[in-house]
C-alpha cells in the first residue's frame, strides 16, 4: 500500500487567503467570516484588530479559505476586554463560541493567544483522533513523531527539518486517525521560543516570522510560517515510522539510542492529551503506532548533524520499503 493517501478530496485550485485583498480580509475578520482550513480543521475567526489581520496575512496566506455560511469546526473570537482596559494596559481575551477558556493577556500577545486558543480548541474537542503533544514531520510517506516536554528543542528541530526537505505535518499536535493509524497534518505555523528564534533566523535566513512577542509566560515567542509545500500537501496523510524523543544538549555529539517499546508506549501515552478519554481505543491505537515504529532517543547539539541523521533514517526506511521488508 502506498503509505501516503489523500485524506480529503481537495479542489484543484482552492481559494487561499492570499486571494483576498487586505480590506476583504479585515471585513471577513470583523464579521467572524474568515474560515481558514488547516488540514481537517476549519476555523472561523473573528477579530477587529489590525495587527492580528497583518499577522494572519503574513503567516496564513497560502491556506485555503472557505466561503462563510458553511461549516466551521470552531468559531473563535479575539476581542478586547472592558472599556476601562481599552486605555490602561489593554488586554485581549480569546473566546470559543462565547466561552473564554483562558484569562485575558496583554494586548501585544494577541496573535500568540489566537494560536494557543486554536490549539486548545483542537486538543479539547477533537476526540475523533488520538492526539499527542508532539511535533510530526514526513519524508516519503513516513512520519517521524517527536514527542517531548517543552524546552527539549522539539520545535527547533522540527523547524530545521522542514527547512531541509522534510514535510511539516504539525509542530504542536500529532493527530492520529484511529481507524487507519495514519497521521493527519495541520501544517500550522511553528511556535518558537527565546534563543530558538535567532537560531532559526540564521539557520534558515529566508524563514518568515510573525510578530515577535516578548514577556509572555514562557519568555519571547514567535511563530514561523509553514513551508508552502507542506501547506499545499496537508491532506496527504503519513504512516507512523519513527517515534523519536529529542533532547538538546550543549556540546553533545548526535546520538540515536534505541528505546524499549514499552517505555516509548508509556512516554507517548503521557504526551497524549486524550489517551485516557479514549479508553480502550486509545490503548489499542497507541499500541499499533508503537508496533509499526522504531522508537529512539536522540541527543544532539547541532542542527546540521541532526538533519544528517534524520536523512539517513529516511534513506534506510525507503530502501526497506522498496525491498518489501515490513516496517
Amino acid at each position, binding site marked *: 500500500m502506498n503509505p501516503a493517501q489523500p485524506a480529503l478530496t481537495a479542489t484543484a485550485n482552492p481559494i487561499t487567503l492570499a486571494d483576498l485583498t487586505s480590506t476583504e480580509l479585515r471585513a471577513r475578520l470583523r464579521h467572524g467570516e474568515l474560515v481558514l482550513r488547516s488540514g*481537517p480543521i476549519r476555523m472561523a475567526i473573528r477579530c477587529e484588530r489590525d495587527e492580528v489581520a497583518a499577522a494572519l496575512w503574513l503567516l496564513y496566506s497560502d491556506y485555503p479559505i472557505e466561503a462563510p455560511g*458553511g461549516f466551521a469546526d470552531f468559531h473563535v473570537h479575539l476581542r478586547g476586554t472592558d472599556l476601562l482596559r481599552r486605555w490602561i494596559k489593554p488586554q485581549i481575551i480569546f473566546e470559543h463560541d462565547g466561552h473564554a*477558556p483562558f484569562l485575558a493577556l496583554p494586548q501585544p500577545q494577541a496573535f500568540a493567544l489566537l494560536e494557543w486558543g486554536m490549539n486548545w480548541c483542537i486538543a479539547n*474537542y*477533537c476526540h*475523533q483522533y488520538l492526539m499527542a503533544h508532539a511535533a510530526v514531520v514526513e519524508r516519503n510517506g513516513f512520519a517521524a513523531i517527536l514527542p517531548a516536554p*517543552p524546552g527539549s528543542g522539539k520545535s527547533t528541530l522540527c523547524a530545521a527539518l522542514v527547512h531541509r526537505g522534510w514535510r511539516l505535518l504539525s509542530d504542536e499536535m500529532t493527530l492520529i486517525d484511529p481507524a487507519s493509524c495514519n497521521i493527519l497534518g495541520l501544517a500550522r505555523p511553528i511556535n518558537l521560543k527565546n534563543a530558538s528564534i535567532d537560531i532559526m533566523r540564521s539557520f534558515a535566513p529566508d524563514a518568515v516570522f510573525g510578530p515577535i512577542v516578548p514577556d509572555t*509566560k514562557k519568555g519571547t515567542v514567535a511563530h514561523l510560517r509553514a513551508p508552502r509545500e507542506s501547506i499545499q500537501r496537508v491532506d496527504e496523510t503519513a504512516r507512523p515510522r519513527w517515534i523519536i524523543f529529542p533532547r538538546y544538549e550543549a556540546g553533545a555529539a548526535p546520538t540515536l539510542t534505541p528505546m524499549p517499546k514499552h517505555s516509548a508506549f508509556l512516554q507517548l501515552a503521557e504526551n497524549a492529551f486524550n489517551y485516557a478519554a*479514549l479508553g480502550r481505543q486509545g490503548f489499542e491505537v497507541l499500541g499499533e503506532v508503537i508496533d509499526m515504529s522504531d522508537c529512539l532517543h536522540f541527543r544532539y547539539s547541532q542542527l546540521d548533524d541532526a538533519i544528517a541523521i534524520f536523512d539517513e533514517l529516511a534513506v534506510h526506511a525507503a530502501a526497506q520499503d522498496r525491498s518489501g521488508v515490513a516496517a
Partner: protein
Amino acid sequence: MKTDSLLLLMRDTSQATSFTLGDWDQVIRLARVANVLARLAEDLAVAGLLEQVPQAPRDHLIAARLLGQRQRMAGLAEIERVRDALAASKLPTVLLKGGAYLAANLSLSRGRMFGDIDLLFRREDLPEAESTLILHGWNSGAVSDYDQRYYRQWMHELPPLTHIKRHSVLDVHHNILPATARHPPDAKLLLEQAQELPDMPGVFVLCPADMVLHSACHLFHEGELGNGLRDLSDLDRLLRHFGRQDGFWATLSERAGLLHLRRPLCYAVRMCTTMLGTPVPNDIVRELRRFGGLRLSLMDAIYQRALRADHPLSNDRWTPLARWSLYVRAHWLRMPPHLLAAHLARKIWFRWTGMPEYPTNEDEVPEQH
C-alpha cells in the same frame, strides 16, 4: 423567536437528512453549549443516521459520543464505589438524576453528560452519611464559613464533596427542595417509594413518577439554566419512556399533589409538549393548567427563551431578561424575603468589590509551548 435547528432535530431526528452544512454548523455549536452533543450523537446512531451526517460535523458527534461512553463507564464505577462505601455503614445508596438514569440503565442515560453524583438520605442519616463519605475520601474542600452555614441551615444539600484522588463530586441531599422553600415536599415520601435496582443491589432510584417530579422541580425552581435544554430533554425522555406504562399518568398526578409539586409539573408538561413535542394525554395537560398560576402565558414566553441553548444563534432580545427574571424567581422560591435580601446583598457586595468569596481555581492560564 428565531428558528433553532437544534430544537428541530431534537423533536425529530430524521430532520438530520435534510440539513445543509450551514445547519450543521449551528446544530453542533448549539448542542455543545447546551451540553447535548453526545446525546444527539447517540440518537443519530440509534436511528442509523450518524453515517449519513457529512464528515466534518460527524467528527464532532463521534468525538462527543466517545466522551459520553467514557463517562458512562467512569460513572458506573464511581457509583459502585459510593455504594460500597455506604454499605459499610448500612446506609442505602439512593441516586437522583443523571446517576439514577445511568444506574437504572434508562435509555435517556445514553450520551447524557453529568458532573456530579446526586444522593438522597433521610435527614437523620445525614451526619453518618457525611462522615462515612469523608472517611472514604470525599471531602468538602475550600468552602467559606458563610457557605457552610448557607448550605447546612437553609439548603437541602451539603456543600459538594470531592474525592481527594479521583475528583469525583457527590451532592448529598436530604430533600429535593430547600428547607426554606414555601412548601418543601416530604422527603420521606420519596424514600418510601424508592426502588432497588435488580442489577445493582444496595442501589436505589426514585419511583418513575417521583423521578419525573424531581426532574421537573429541579428545572423549574432553579434559576441558573446552563443545562436547561438538557434537563428539559431529560423530562421529555422520561415522559416518553414511562408514559407507556399502565397507570403512570394517574400516579404522576397523584404524587404531584402529595409532594406539592403540581406547579413545576405543569410547566414541565407545557414546555415539553410545546418545545419538544412530547406526547402527553390531553386530560393531564388540562388538569395541570389550573396549577400554573395566573401568568401562565408570561411564564411560557419566559421559559421558551430561557430553556434554549444559551447562544447568540438562539437568543433573541428578550432572552437576557427572561433568564434574569428566572434567576430572581428561583431565589424568591428558595428563601423567605429577609434571608433573600441578606444573601443577595452579600453576593452583590462581592461582585462590586471584586473580592473573591472564596478561592477558585477555575481560571486557567493558556498552555504556552
